[in-house]
């Protein structure tokens, strides 16, 4: 029992949504009070961001927290870091909490790098003596020795994030909350950050790590919990949690074809719906995977709910890396097309020439609009596997998996002009 450092018990959090939208105004409240002085203020819509969440974390554990957007992950971290209060339930923490919820908060553009290191460090809860002690280390980690007297408004965004992360990384709390920080910076700096966190973990710090970056979660965490709709739907091994997270869509993707029709996790009016997705090669033959550099056709079958022709149909897709980083979007609008009149059942085909992504597994989100109203939205509508296809025609593969793109191009040598 003594080595439990975080104990979360029946934690719930309710948010009130604005009645119409946005903020209350004093005028409105005053008018309401005058009109109906004895009625309670207008009821507002409520959402439960967390519902009866309980779990424990042991000292020195690195816990991954995964879940779709809106599952309540950030809300959990916000409660743990005391930014917001729970509606009910209880949390017990045995140690100083430091959080990296969006690095760089509190940086002021007018102040110099050095001034910002002190300001941000203090905001994160460091004593100024502690910052002074670590100052050189922080600056060296960020590799910004020459820029510390420059106002940060002159920094590039990369420099800015490096400095901010570097300050945060030198915080030494017993419990560290990390939310998606690894989405920032270049690949080399990201790796440096992961290494820094691994060091922290090996020194016995407890880390809660929220990320969509599945590879980072699996390589870094010892255990994971999966959030679904504000509750913990799985807690335990990382592999299992990730499998559950990627869920049914993943399994279906392996068969190369997905029963989009049966999917329940969709939003939109439903006036027109995607019913099937499959991939074709340039000649129109069905394929299960894409070869880099080949022509591919992404086919989406749809049907209208009332069996009548659909009007003004648009399709947009977003392709993301398996880890969640978006790679590109495409669709009717980008191709300069619009389908004013579409049959009740039909097929929309996106033809992509010389597929420019290296071998990896990708996710595909599909978004169907009819008459300017979102009709059907499917996150992870499909998984797309890309295999090596000798994009460059030279037999060379890209060495680094970190480079997400392949480009058309040639290299030549020319004498001085």
């Amino acid at each position: 029992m003594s080595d439990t450092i975080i104990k979360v018990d029946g934690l719930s959090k309710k948010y009130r949504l604005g009645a119409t939208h946005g903020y209350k105004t004093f005028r409105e409240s005053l008018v309401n009070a005058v009109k109906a002085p004895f009625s309670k203020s207008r009821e507002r819509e409520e959402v439960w961001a967390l519902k009866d969440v309980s779990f424990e974390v042991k000292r020195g554990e690195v816990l991954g927290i995964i879940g779709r957007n809106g599952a309540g992950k950030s809300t959990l971290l916000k409660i743990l870091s005391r930014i917001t209060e729970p509606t009910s339930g209880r949390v017990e923490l045995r140690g100083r909490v430091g959080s990296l919820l969006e690095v760089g908060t509190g940086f002021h553009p007018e102040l110099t790098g050095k001034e910002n290191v002190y300001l941000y460090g203090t905001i994160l809860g460091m004593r100024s003596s502690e910052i002074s002690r670590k100052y050189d280390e922080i600056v060296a980690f960020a590799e910004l020795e020459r820029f510390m007297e420059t106002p940060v408004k002159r920094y590039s965004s990369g420099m800015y994030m490096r400095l901010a992360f570097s300050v945060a990384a030198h915080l030494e709390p017993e419990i560290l909350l990390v939310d998606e920080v690894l989405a920032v910076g270049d690949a080399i700096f990201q790796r440096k950050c992961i290494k820094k966190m691994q060091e922290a973990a090996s020194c016995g710090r407890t880390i809660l790590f929220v990320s969509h970056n599945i590879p980072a979660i699996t390589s870094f965490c010892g255990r994971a919990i999966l959030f679904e709709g504000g509750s913990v739907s799985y807690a335990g091994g990382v592999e299992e949690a990730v499998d559950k997270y990627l869920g049914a869509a993943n399994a279906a993707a392996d068969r190369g074809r997905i029963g989009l029709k049966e999917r329940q996790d969709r939003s939109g009016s439903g006036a027109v719906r995607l019913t099937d997705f499959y991939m074709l090669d340039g000649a129109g033959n069905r394929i299960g995977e894409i070869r880099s550099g080949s022509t591919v056709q992404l086919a989406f079958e749809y049907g209208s709910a009332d069996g009548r022709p659909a009007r003004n149909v648009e399709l947009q897709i977003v392709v993301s890396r398996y880890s969640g980083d978006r790679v590109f979007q495409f669709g009717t609008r980008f191709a300069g097309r619009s389908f004013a009149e579409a049959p009740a059942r039909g097929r929309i085909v996106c033809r992509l020439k010389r597929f420019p992504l290296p071998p990896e597994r990708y996710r595909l989100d599909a978004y169907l609009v009819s008459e300017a109203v979102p009709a059907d939205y499917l996150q992870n509508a499909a998984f797309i596997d890309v295999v090596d296809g000798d994009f460059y025609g030279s037999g060379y593969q890209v060495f680094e998996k970190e480079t997400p793109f392949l480009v058309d191009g040639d290299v030549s040598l020319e004498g001085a002009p």
Partner: protein
Amino acid sequence: MRIVITSKHKFTLSELASLWHYRELGSFLVKRDIKVRYKQTALGGLWAIIQPFFTMVVFSLFFGKMAKVPSDGVPYPVFVYAGLLPWTYFSGALTAASESMVGNANLITKVYFPRAIVPAAAVLSGLLDFLVASTVLAGMMLYFHIGLNPLLPLVIPLTGLTVLCAAGAGFWLSALNVEYRDIRYTIPFVIQLWLFSSPVIYPSSIVPARYQWALALNPMAGVLKAFRAAVLGGQALDWRALGISSGVILLLFVSGFLYFRRMERTFADVI
């Protein structure tokens, strides 16, 4: 170290201790505000003088010279400046405090610290401008041959009262400003009304003696009156008015702090 987070908590002494624990952050926010202000304006510290000085010149011209507003037997310029000095600080501090929570929204939604630090820092960071602007008062006193008054040290607690008053009203307005976003538009108006109902432009002696207590219900009135008496002399200090105003300030401060604290728990959700 053990932290328990639940939905209910009562005000405890440990909370005051935690405010103390975060004093360094408070002083950093004050320093940040000052640095940024002095870096942003080309005139830097000069701005702190220009604003009350020119207000004094204009007021002296229109109210002193043309409208012949009485000034308790001292030259009107120095009379009005002795009122404008604490008033400029007060109105600036109150405006800054009211905007401070919304202005620091990104901090509030991302990091934990006792929120009261934010408006408090906004109020305190105006003190440097106040000090700078005081030099003009000293200069004017030399120029108009106004001797040092034995009550002069009272200026320090009076400034303290002004700070408390700005903080109290600032707690109210900054919390209201988070909850109701149209409050901000009323703030300049509130401050203007407050100015005209305070003895800045005119001496409090134009109000009949039996209504002096009512004037003192405006907490800045008693303070301004005492400030002038302490700096310029010539007038006996009206302890009764000062007492009433101090009481109102205390009430404003405590109620403001409590209201702020009650709203504090939802700031991060609605800001």
